[in-house]
């Protein structure tokens, strides 16, 4: 076993300190060290997108980073969005458009789409596709997810105007 290292990471606004092996994947760190199990793991080779988080604001595969690399950085996970009682507009849109079935891939989709919508809510058809291109879903056939992205764009643009 290699030498353990200290890391300090800000996750969803909270500072966490842990001592870990360098080989610990960021996805495992988030799920099993920080118990933020909303981030899911589907392939551990960077294809399926279920483990997508925001790393310094950009959607990133947490299975393709080591947790030690997060030292001093900021992470946002699905737990940073709304609560069950008070969903984020993007989550609301997912529910209203029936954009999830088993829900396993969903946190990855949310965290991939969120920064796009936070950048602009004026999305072309191509932008909608682009926002989803790094995520696999086996249940929905994607159509309702596309609908949800458009619906969320509407919600978030009217929300920002008010």
């Amino acid at each position, binding site marked *: *076993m290699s030498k353990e290292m200290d890391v300090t990471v800000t996750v969803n606004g909270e500072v966490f300190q842990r001592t870990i*092996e360098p*080989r*610990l994947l960021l996805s495992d760190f988030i*799920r*099993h060290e920080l*118990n*933020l*199990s*909303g*981030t*899911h*793991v*589907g*392939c*551990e*080779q960077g*294809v*399926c997108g*279920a483990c997508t988080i925001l790393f310094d604001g950009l959607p990133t595969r947490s299975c393709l980073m080591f947790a030690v690399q997060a030292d001093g950085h900021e992470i946002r*996970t*699905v*737990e940073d*969005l*709304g*609560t*069950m*009682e008070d*969903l984020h507009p993007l*989550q609301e849109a*997912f*529910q*209203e458009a*029936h954009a*999830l*079935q*088993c*829900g*396993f*891939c*969903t*946190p990855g989709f*949310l965290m991939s789409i969120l920064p796009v919508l936070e950048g602009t809510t004026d999305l072309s058809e191509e932008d909608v*596709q682009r926002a*989803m*291109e790094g*995520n*696999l*879903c*086996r*249940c*929905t*056939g*994607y*159509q*309702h*997810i*596309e609908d949800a992205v458009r619906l969320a764009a509407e919600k978030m643009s009217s929300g920002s105007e008010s």
Partner: protein
Amino acid sequence: MAKLIGKRITRNEDPRLLTGQALFVDDVELPGMLHAAFLRSEYAHAKLKGVDVSAALERPGVIAAFTAEDMGDAWSPGPPLVIPPPTIEDVEFYTRTQVPLVKDKIRHAGEPLAIVIAESRYIAEDALDDIVVDLEPLDVVADIERALDPDSPLVHDDLESNLAAHLVQEKGDYAAAREQADKVIRRRIVIERGIAGAMENRGIVASWDNKQQQLTVWDTTQSPIPIRNGLASMFGLSEHQVRVIAPFVGGGFGPKIMMFYPEEVLLTWSTLRMGKPIKWIEDRRENFYATTQERGQVHDVELALTNDGRILGLSDDFLHDTGAYDPYGLTIPLNTQCHALGPYDIPSYSSDLKVIFTNMTLTTPVRGAGRPQGVFVIERMLDIAAKELGIDRAEIRKRNYLPKDVFPYDNLIIDQAFSSFVIDSGDYLPAMEKALEMIEYEKFTQEEQPKLREEGRRVGIGVVSFIETTGVGPYEGARVTIESSGKVSTATGVGTQGQGHFTVFAQIVAEQLGVDVRDVHLVTGDTAQFHWGTGTFASRGAVVAANAVNAAASIVRGKVLELASELLETPEEELELEDGVVRVADIPTKSMSLGELAQRANPLRGAVEPGTEPGLEATAYFGPKYGATAFGTHAMIVEVDLETMMVEIKRYIVVEDCGTVLNPLIVDGQLHGGVALGIGNSFYEKLVFDENGQLLNASFADYLIPTAAEIPRIEIAHQVTPSPLNPLGSKGVGEAGAIPVPALFAQAVENALGVDGLEILESPLSPQRLFELLHGEETEA
């Protein structure tokens, strides 16, 4: 009654899933939990001479490592078949079931040879590299067409051949039909293997609590109650000592129902032996060779017709690849046999099925479960017949549909449930007409296609019909309870993998009891909550379990009305249930809430009178006489880039008839997902095995699950022909989307290519295959 059934109601389960608060198996964390990893064979066929785990045990952090030898008497093949073979006469069936750890002979790549249990998964995987395996590779059975050759190696040495089963089904006199026919068309059709590809891999946490003498197993199974029953009997425990929980499961699609996966046995055996909770989470590479797969058939088909395109008979002799073992009996190929008949009036049928053992991963149902193959066979043959007889593709189908007045229609062969394959209801012609109208078939074929072709663009259209047997028995049950808060809890045993049970079942209960859908709380997949049932498969949740829920809710409704009538001193007919209260229809102020009634039904003082039960609760079961058969027509327009061989789907139409639609939002979602998987099966997803039984694309980088960019918008229309077999009139829809797509895609692409003599008789296609079909076979990849 407030009408909730049939409404587009958003889902109860979504807030938990959307906020990361839903429990999946890998989210289970227990104090002192250990982690397992499996050493799996890389060879597909080998004599196993020894497995030495001693070095692994030396590694710091490794707690245990076990081989088949270590299991002693607990090692046995089996246990019993998931689905036994049919009990009819003249079926040959050789039962060979999977083993927990290989003892003497490896029969497919991915079979587990040893389990390592360590403080972390990382260390457990390190230790796999320490294990020394002594084996002698054997020649491999990887081609079902050569597996029955006399000189083929044997998957099971104690059998005379690699034949796992043989069954001939006949209806009418095919030989006579062939004699009479104006036209007999004969083709060979090949359908390759694919995976289910649920986003969540399998996973198990097993925990034996010695003080409570209680075993708890969290399992990604689609079938928790049979797993509970099986584990209890296997390990000599009372069923009450075993609790199996299938929490939120990240997609099932078939392979998550198996009795048993080796890992389910091993994790349980290990926790019983060690007294520590143990977690195993399958990784994606394991999922590619240790989780079951499907499709994999070769058909020699003959269709006998009159000159005006009427089918006189169908003959289909086919081979079905079951992989190294056959625990799932004949479910898949029986579905294929039935669905090859389609919605058509086929007076004579002969089907000779041979199931073949190979040195490849087991096949068990994957969304569609043999049906896509049957549909591919009949639909492709009809396309060829149409071409050869000069009849329009849609027209030849219309000429052969069973008329709407023949139902129930007995096809005179057995189905997957071993009962006669009877179609309960159907009305096929309007579904076809609707699909043609939506896709503008006339306009496309008469105007657009010729015009685009002149411009050099290869566009094509396809239209196929299909049936889908759904909602098979034996039964499911449900318990509905009004709690003293006025909220309603509902428990079933089926397990859920995204089908929206939390919402659809709640709609049924809410409609019966006049409560808000959000106030119905469903518990599913926990054997501590409901004791009886089979599982979620064969598109049966919305049929079998839903009707059980409906039956239980209806009894509770009766109880509510009876008690309220007494307390409100009003006849039952004058009462209505709405907004969580029972009130007198004419005097809305005279009412009682359901919560109050629930409390009154379960008094702390006062005895339960003889013949009565406390509480507002009922348990009911539903078992259909036979399965309900859904149907529909799909249509598609594609464009093929003749230079690159890439195919774009321009339009996709679904006309679906699944009887009563319980929740259109959810049904549409099921159809979208099914079609997407079907598109994968048609053009992107193919498991490539080499002649040594090695899977050559065991990762998401090489096995191509479609992304949003590959899936078109899907336009859906519903037609409703209720099933007479259940009070809700529902039919299943979980697999419908996937079933007709490969046949449809092949037809549309063939039409787009428009090359004389070029027939597509295989699935899936690929750009490479299209290139070969157009430029000659010698260029095979």
